[in-house]
C-alpha cells in the first residue's frame, strides 16, 4: 500500500469524509484542505459535525458562512450545527403563533417538533442548501465536507433518498413529514443535493479508518451502505500506520496487530484505492505539520512534556458495580472507542462474581459476538437488537392489526407512515424495552449505538413518556416502565467510553452533556486503549504516552475522578482470556 501524497489527491470538486470518531477524520480533512489550498486551489472546508473541533484546529471562530483561515491564502472554513438548525426551524414554525395560541398549545407543537425527524431533516436541510448554493459553491474549486461520525453521516446521507422517495409517494398530504411541512418547498434542493452526492465525477467519498479490525469493519459497513445509496466513487485512507523504527516489544506487537488487520481487510474495501497515512503520536497542531503529513516529507516529532498522572484500572469500576448492584448498565460513546469491549468485560466480570447478567447491543455494527467470542459463559445470556429486523416486526404487527379494520386505501395509508424514518426509532426502542422487561432478574448491560443514534433513541423515549399520559393507543407495559428506570441512578448506571485523544474526549464531553439534558447521569468514565501504563522504549509510543497525559487529566477532572483506564493490549480482546487482559495486570508484568 502506498502512502497518501499529492499524486493521489482526489479530483472531484466535492469531497465527503466519513469515519468513526477518533479515526482522525477531522485531521485528515483539514490537512488535505490546507495542502490543496497551498497548491493554489480555492478550498472550502465545511463541518457538519455537532462535535466539530475545526475551531480548535484553526484557533479561530467559525460561522455558518465561509471564513478565511488565518495563515492560509486559499482556505476557507464553515461550521454547520445541526442542533442549532433544528432549533431555528422549530422557532420558525412555532414563533408566529406565540401570543396567538395558549402556551399549553404551543408546548404541544414544540414537543412534536423536538423529535428525531426534525433534527435530522433540519440538519440535512442545512447541508443540502449549502451543497446547492451556487453563489457559495461557484466561488471554490473544491468543497470538503468533514461530516459527523459514521452513524450520523449515514443518517444524513440516507435521508436524501429516503426523503425524496417519501415526498414522491406521499399522496395523502399528512404524514410523518407533517412537522416538517415547512421544508417541502425545498424538495428540489434535496433532489439536486442527492444528484451531486451520487455523481462520481462530482463527489468522492473519503473513507477514513485505522489499521485495526473494528475500524476497518466500520469503514466497510459505511462504504457498503453509501455505495448502495449511489456514492460509488470512494477512496480509503488508512490513518496511523506505524513504521517500525525500534526493537521495542510493544511497538512490534502494535505493528503486528496493524499488519494482521490489514491482511484481513474486509472485502467491501478491496475494490477501492487505498492509501495510508503515517502514525503520528500527537495532535497535528500546526499548518506546516499538517502539510508535511499530506505530502511525502518527513513528519518531525515534537517533544511534549507532561507530568505523570494517575491511571486507575477498570477493576475499580467493577468493584463499584458489585457493591452498588445497578440493574441496567449502559456503555456509551462514539463508535470505535470500544463500547462493545467494555460492555463485554463488565458482563464477564460480573458473571464471574456470581451475578447473572444479560448482554445486549443496539449498535448496527453489532460485533458483540465477535468481542465476546463463541464461548458460552456461565451466568451470561447474550442478545442483539437488529434495527432492520425490529422495523420488520413492527411493520408486520401494525399491518396485521390494521388489516382487521382497514380497507385497501387505509392500508396504503398506514404503509406510508410506516415507511418513515421515525419507525426505526420506535421499533428499536420497543425491542430495547422488551429486553429490559424480559430480563428482570438479570443485570442488563447494553452496548448502545453511536451517539447520534443513542440520543435520538433517548429523545424518542422522552417524547413517548410525555405522550403516554394522553395517548389512547395500546402502550406496551415494557415501554411505559422503562423511562423512569432510566432516570433512577440506583437502577441505571451509565459508563462513558472514550480514548485518550482529542476528538474522542471532546465528543465524550458532548455526549455527557446530552445525556444530562435527557436526565441521565454518568457515573463512570472509561478511557480505553491507553499506553500510559505500558512499559515501552519505542520513541513513537513514548511520545504517544506523553500526548495521552493531557487527555487523561482532562477526563480525571471532568469525571470528578470517577474514571478508570484500560491499557492497549497486544492481541484483540476477544473471548474470556482476551477480555481478562484488559485488567491491566498482565501488561504491567511484561
Amino acid at each position, binding site marked *: 500500500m502506498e502512502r497518501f501524497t499529492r499524486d493521489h489527491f482526489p479530483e472531484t470538486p466535492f469531497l465527503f469524509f466519513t469515519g468513526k470518531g477518533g479515526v482522525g477524520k477531522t485531521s485528515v480533512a483539514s490537512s488535505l484542505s490546507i495542502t490543496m489550498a497551498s497548491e493554489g486551489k480555492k478550498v472550502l472546508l465545511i463541518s457538519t459535525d455537532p462535535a466539530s473541533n475545526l475551531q480548535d484546529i484553526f484557533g479561530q471562530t467559525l460561522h455558518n458562512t465561509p471564513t478565511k483561515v488565518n495563515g492560509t491564502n486559499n482556505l476557507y472554513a464553515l461550521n454547520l450545527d445541526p442542533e442549532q438548525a433544528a432549533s431555528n426551524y422549530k422557532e420558525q414554525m412555532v414563533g408566529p403563533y406565540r401570543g396567538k395560541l395558549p402556551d399549553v398549545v404551543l408546548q404541544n407543537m414544540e414537543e*412534536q417538533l423536538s423529535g428525531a425527524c426534525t433534527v435530522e431533516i433540519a440538519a440535512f436541510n442545512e447541508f443540502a442548501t449549502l451543497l446547492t448554493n451556487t453563489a457559495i459553491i461557484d466561488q471554490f474549486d473544491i468543497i470538503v465536507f468533514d461530516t459527523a461520525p459514521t452513524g450520523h453521516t449515514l443518517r444524513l446521507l440516507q435521508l436524501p433518498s429516503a426523503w425524496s422517495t417519501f415526498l414522491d409517494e406521499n399522496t395523502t398530504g399528512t*404524514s410523518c413529514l407533517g412537522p416538517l411541512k415547512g421544508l417541502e418547498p425545498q424538495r428540489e434542493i434535496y433532489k439536486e443535493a442527492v444528484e451531486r452526492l451520487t455523481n462520481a465525477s462530482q463527489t468522492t467519498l473519503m473513507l477514513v479508518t485505522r489499521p485495526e479490525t473494528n475500524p476497518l469493519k466500520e469503514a466497510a459497513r459505511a462504504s457498503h451502505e453509501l455505495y448502495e445509496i449511489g456514492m460509488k466513487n470512494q477512496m480509503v485512507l488508512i490513518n496511523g500506520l506505524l513504521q517500525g523504527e525500534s526493537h521495542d516489544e510493544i511497538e512490534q506487537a502494535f505493528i503486528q496487530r496493524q499488519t494482521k488487520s490489514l491482511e484481513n481487510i474486509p472485502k467491501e474495501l478491496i475494490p477501492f484505492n487505498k492509501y495510508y497515512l503515517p502514525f503520528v503520536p500527537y495532535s497535528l497542531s500546526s499548518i506546516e505539520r499538517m502539510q508535511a503529513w499530506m505530502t511525502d516529507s518527513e513528519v518531525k516529532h515534537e517533544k511534549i512534556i507532561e507530568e505523570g498522572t494517575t491511571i486507575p484500572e477498570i477493576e475499580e469500576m467493577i468493584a463499584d458495580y458489585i457493591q452498588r448492584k445497578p440493574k441496567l448498565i449502559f456503555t456509551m460513546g462514539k463508535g470505535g472507542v470500544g463500547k462493545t469491549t467494555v460492555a463485554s468485560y463488565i458482563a464477564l466480570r460480573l458473571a464471574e462474581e456470581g451475578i447473572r447478567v444479560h448482554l445486549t447491543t443496539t449498535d448496527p455494527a453489532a460485533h458483540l459476538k465477535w468481542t465476546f467470542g463463541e464461548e458460552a459463559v456461565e451466568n451470561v445470556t447474550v442478545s442483539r437488537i437488529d434495527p432492520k429486523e425490529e422495523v420488520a416486526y413492527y411493520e408486520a404487527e401494525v399491518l396485521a392489526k390494521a388489516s382487521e379494520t382497514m380497507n385497501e386505501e387505509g392500508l396504503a395509508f398506514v404503509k406510508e407512515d410506516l415507511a418513515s424514518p421515525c419507525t426505526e426509532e420506535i421499533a428499536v426502542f420497543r425491542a430495547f424495552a422488551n429486553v429490559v422487561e424480559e430480563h428482570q432478574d438479570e443485570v442488563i448491560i447494553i452496548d448502545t449505538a453511536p451517539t447520534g443514534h443513542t440520543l435520538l433513541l433517548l429523545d424518542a423515549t422522552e417524547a413517548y413518556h410525555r405522550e403516554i399520559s394522553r395517548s389512547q393507543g395500546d402502550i406496551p407495559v415494557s415501554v411505559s416502565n422503562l423511562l423512569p428506570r432510566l432516570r433512577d441512578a440506583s437502577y441505571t448506571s451509565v459508563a462513558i467510553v472514550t480514548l485518550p485523544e482529542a476528538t474522542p474526549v471532546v465528543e465524550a464531553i458532548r455526549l455527557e452533556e446530552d445525556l444530562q439534558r435527557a436526565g441521565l447521569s454518568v457515573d463512570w468514565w472509561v478511557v480505553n486503549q491507553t499506553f500510559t501504563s505500558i512499559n515501552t522504549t519505542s520513541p513513537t509510543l513514548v511520545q504517544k504516552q506523553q500526548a495521552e497525559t493531557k487527555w487523561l487529566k482532562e477526563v480525571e477532572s471532568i469525571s470528578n475522578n470517577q474514571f478508570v483506564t484500560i491499557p492497549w493490549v497486544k492481541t484483540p480482546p476477544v473471548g474470556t482470556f482476551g477480555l481478562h487482559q484488559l485488567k491491566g495486570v498482565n501488561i504491567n508484568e511484561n
Partner: protein
Amino acid sequence: MKKIEIYEQAMCCSTGLCGPSFNPELLRLSFVINNLKNAGLVAERFNLTSDPHRFVENEEVKALLTSGGMDVLPATFVDGKLICKGHYPTNAQFVEWSGLSEEELVKKPKVRLSLKGDA
C-alpha cells in the same frame, strides 16, 4: 351537504403510528375521512403541527383552547357548529352526517395488501 371539520392535537402523522404505539382510533378516523372524501363529501382534519393557522383563525377553537387547554382536542365541527370535543365522533355520527351507510364508511379491502410489501 354537511361540512365536517376536525381539529386535532399536534401529531407526527395522521395515523398516530409515529406515536408511542399503534392507535386504532386514529386509524379508524383516517380511513373514515378517506372514504368520506372519496364519496365527495367535505371532511377535513386540521393538525396543530401542520395547520396551526386554522386554530388561530377559528375563534371558537381558540376560545376552547384558552379555557380548556389541550383536553378539548380533538374538536369536531359540523357546518361550523361544535359537535363534540375531547374525543372523535362515532361511526354512527359520521353515518348521520354523511348519509353514507356504515358499510360504506368502513369498507373492507378488496385486495389484501401483502404484509411484506415494498414499504
